């Protein structure tokens, strides 16, 4: 299988004046194959979110290489990385990451809007994505009128609307009750598999991680094939 994402010897540390550097990710090597569902499991503070940020090109590694969909992240400008995220990746966040001032459909259509897709086309595609996650009929709903589960489904719809080949989820069920969490997780898995998209999930929840094709464990910035 082809790797859609790979990390090789990746290290990321945070530095503050007068303080010792905090190494969040340490010498990480991993590959994500096309269509693979990978879960990275670990406790809070283990470096999962930082690693996801590196894989999404939101941050750059201090050491090592991150290849995103065939591109070396360190050689890309921030604009190029943003375009890549927008066109070929989908991100789902624990806190939903919705823009409260926009309607539901505008939130879903946001990546298309940023790509200057025609209003009619983007509304149609966003409506389809909403229907896919079971939110049809709620196009013009306000975010503060929606439940947590609905908001996260909306987040998933936004991640799917650009037809991504790689979906990254940062604790996507962390803010949901068990029932909603299972619904959203199933939705993510189903839609990713239906599109042959790779799905990378970072989570502290073993139940969620158990659904993945492959699991990695993370502690103190290090990644292992087995629980550390």
């Amino acid at each position, binding site marked *: 299988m082809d790797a859609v994402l790979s990390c090789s010897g990746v290290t990321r540390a945070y530095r503050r004046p007068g303080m010792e550097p905090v190494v969040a990710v340490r010498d990480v090597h991993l590959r994500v194959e096309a269509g693979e569902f990978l879960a990275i499991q670990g406790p809070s503070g283990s470096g999962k979110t930082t690693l996801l940020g590196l894989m999404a090109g939101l*941050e750059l590694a201090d050491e090592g290489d991150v290849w995103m969909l065939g591109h070396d992240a360190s050689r890309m400008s921030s*604009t190029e990385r943003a375009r890549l*995220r927008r066109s070929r990746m989908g991100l789902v966040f624990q806190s939903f*990451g919705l823009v409260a001032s926009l309607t539901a459909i505008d939130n879903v259509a946001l990546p298309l809007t940023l790509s200057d897709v025609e209003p009619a086309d983007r509304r149609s595609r966003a409506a389809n994505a909403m229907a896919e996650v079971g939110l049809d009929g709620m196009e013009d709903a306000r975010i503060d009128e929606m439940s947590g589960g609905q908001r996260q489904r909306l987040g998933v719809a936004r991640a799917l609307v650009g037809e991504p080949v790689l979906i990254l989820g940062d604790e996507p069920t962390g803010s949901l009750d068990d029932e909603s969490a299972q619904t959203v997780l199933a939705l993510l898995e189903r839609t990713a598999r239906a599109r042959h998209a790779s799905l990378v999930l970072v989570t502290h929840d073993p139940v969620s991680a158990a659904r993945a094709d492959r699991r990695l464990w993370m502690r103190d910035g290090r990644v292992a094939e087995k629980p550390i």
Partner: protein
Amino acid sequence: MFLERHALRLIMREPRRSLAVGAGVILAAALMATVLLFGSASGSTLTRRALADVPVDAQAVSSVGSDPQVAAAQIASDPAVTAALPVDIVHFATAVLDKAGSATQTSVGLLVGIDDNYAQQTGLFTTAEGTRSPGKIAMSRDLATNLGAIPGDSVTFTLPGGRSLKLEVSGIADITGGDLVLGPTDAAHRASGANPPTNVAIIDRASLDQQVLPLVPAGAVAQDPATTGGSGSAPVSTPIAAVDRQVHLRYDLAQVPGDPVAAQTWLDQVRRRIERSAAGAFSIVDDAIAALEPVAGDLLWGQVLFLFLALPGIALAVAVSRLAADATSDATRRHLALLRARGARRSQLARILLEATVGISFVSAIVGAVLGVAVGWLRFGAELASADPVGSTVRAVIVSVAVVTALGAVAAGVVLRDQLREEVATGRQELQRTTPPLWQRLFLDVAALVAAVLVFAITGGTALKPIFTAEGNATVTLALTSFVAPFLFWTGSTLLLLRLAMRWLQRGTGLRRGLERLFGGGGLVAAGSLSARAPAGARAVVVLSLAVSLASSVLIFDATYGAQQVVDAELTLGGDLKVVPSTPTAALPAVQAVSGPEVALATPFVDRIVYVGSEAQDLLGIDPNTLPGVAHLSDSFFDHQSASAAIDVLTSQPDAILVSSETAHDYSIVMGDTLNIRVPDANGNLTVVQFHMAGIALEFPTAPKDAFLVANQSYVAQQTGNDRISFVLARSSGDPVAAAAALQQRVGQDWAVASLATVTARLANGITSVDLAALVQIEVAFAVLIAALGTALFLLASLTERRRELATLKAIGAEPAHMRRAMAAETLVIGLAGTLTGLVVGGLLGFAFLQILAGVFDPPAEFPVVPFLGLAGLIGAVTLALVLATAIANGAVARLQVVAALRER
């Protein structure tokens, strides 16, 4: 001490918050301190202006038996005295002109004996017509008119004691400005506002002493010439000595302190010093002090006006503190949560917040006041140096620190109170109002605007009215009630704007579509953000709008004020330039001498005293072909005809004459009537010249004070054989001041060249002598700073509140350009809404300010002057400020740590 320590920690550990909150307070204190110093500097300007108008600073009145010559020498030795000029005054009981078999008599008056250098030293009693010759008199215009006397006639004066003498008339004297020195010198008469005599004859002092004084018996008492018309006050029964021997003094004005009160003290000290040295030989009557008395009042009212003009700026700067508190609410919440976690009670949190806020406001106010003092001294240092520099500086610092600390603490305190409620109650990110604020529900904005219109209609809008003191000094009275209408208008329009801006942003009508079309996805995000944060956005629009309205209103006010000063000056001078030949010169050579590269057009002008019946009037001889190109001729100058029609008649009909309405009325003259007027020829002999009445002139360039006539200069010259002109009026090719300097150099120092600038300075009286341009520049600069700071704080507050939202946008693929466009879109909406409404409100406020000062303009300005260049500069400066503010916000967005922000709860 425990709580104080925590308050100090809150200030020190959140420097971003402390600096942002303090910035508005710094601006407010700086503006207030600068304006207060401007007020003090204005005191110096007013004092200098008032003293410059006084021809004689003091009159030393000799006691009976003392020698005026000795007194003059003694007084001249005082270090404050630059000139001691002996003047002898003899009251006469009657003056009679016996001519052609009939006698004309007037009532009481004065024979004034002066030396040759008196007119040069004081500017008083210059010869308007004819000459002054030893042993002969130059009559005041009133005396000449009352008697029907002309140069060459002889007038018989009856003196106290009954003796009389006959004196020949050699000319007409201008006694303008001589009221104080001709009026009674005793306190009782002065306090009653007694009118000075108008029947005055000027004679050389040696002749008066030799020919007149011996005829007046010692101890003779005159009939009081002043009791006949004392401004409605009761007559004063104090007897007047028939002979009054005085020494008129000029002081070294460079020694006089700038502060009007200190200047009065200084003058009083000089008076006492001179009187002490004379040991009773004479007493000093202080005319300069009398001129300064209205200045202190003028200054006080002026300072009220200046503070009123600056009030919106001070309020705005304080309002910026509120935006700052909004912008840094995250830091405050963080600190409060920490204290709460450590067990702090709500009352303790409130006290810590209060102490921290007052502390920041106090320190910032001190910094601002020091900055304001620095700006004030840089800008008005010269005036301040002579106007109680230490006292005025200390006062400015104390007042601005006290007022602005209180205002800043209240403004920031309101936000902190809300934050405290939030922290304790729910910890929500944003306090959402469910109901509109009380003022909106009560429609206080509309009520204030309606009240403003009503108050304006009732008070007439004019706050400053020129009046004259008992001594005849012009001063202004200022009705504080007249500030009520502009204040209500400002308050009402501010609140209404806030209401409308909030509603517009909340509904976002057209905003979303327009911004998306202009800025793509960034525009859509901006529209959503503006709609979601409508209250904060509306506050930013209002701050910017009021900053622009403040700047544009003072710019419009200043432009109108300046234009009106030029109109007044043009009317008084007659044109851009006025050139008086050193010797009698004919029209053509005079115009040729003046014509040159710096002069676009020149026209001859004659101002000659002529006689309509027995009445002396000014005949203005003009060239109707060239005068309209040089002087401003308004239609309002003429009765029932336009300016061009009046000039056309003079052009087509050489013997046409325009008369004043009084003359037309008194002599029952109508259009086409023949007028026979006696006009002096080249030798001063009167020649009868026939004119035909062609219209009524109400006002005319050179602003003649007395009754006047306007005729063709060439026709008068042809009829009298006298083609000498009085002066040449000219329009400059460029700047009148530069043209005047070049022209002066070309025609030589013997010719007197005056420009508009000279006249503007001379016309300035009381409060109008203050250079408002300096205040305007300072207010515009502060307004631009406030606009920049307000917008930057709004954008930063927006970033603070939307950190996760912005991080999400970046995470899902928003490029840096998208983020920049979103920021630019928000700035554009705030900037356009604030600037456009600000210009409208500023225009209306400018008009309101103009109404406040309408009383000091004559004629008052009818419409505000719009300074397009100044407003373009203002818009440019505000745009630059907004671009900088946006750049700061973009920098913050670029530095946003996406992963960290997404992790925040």
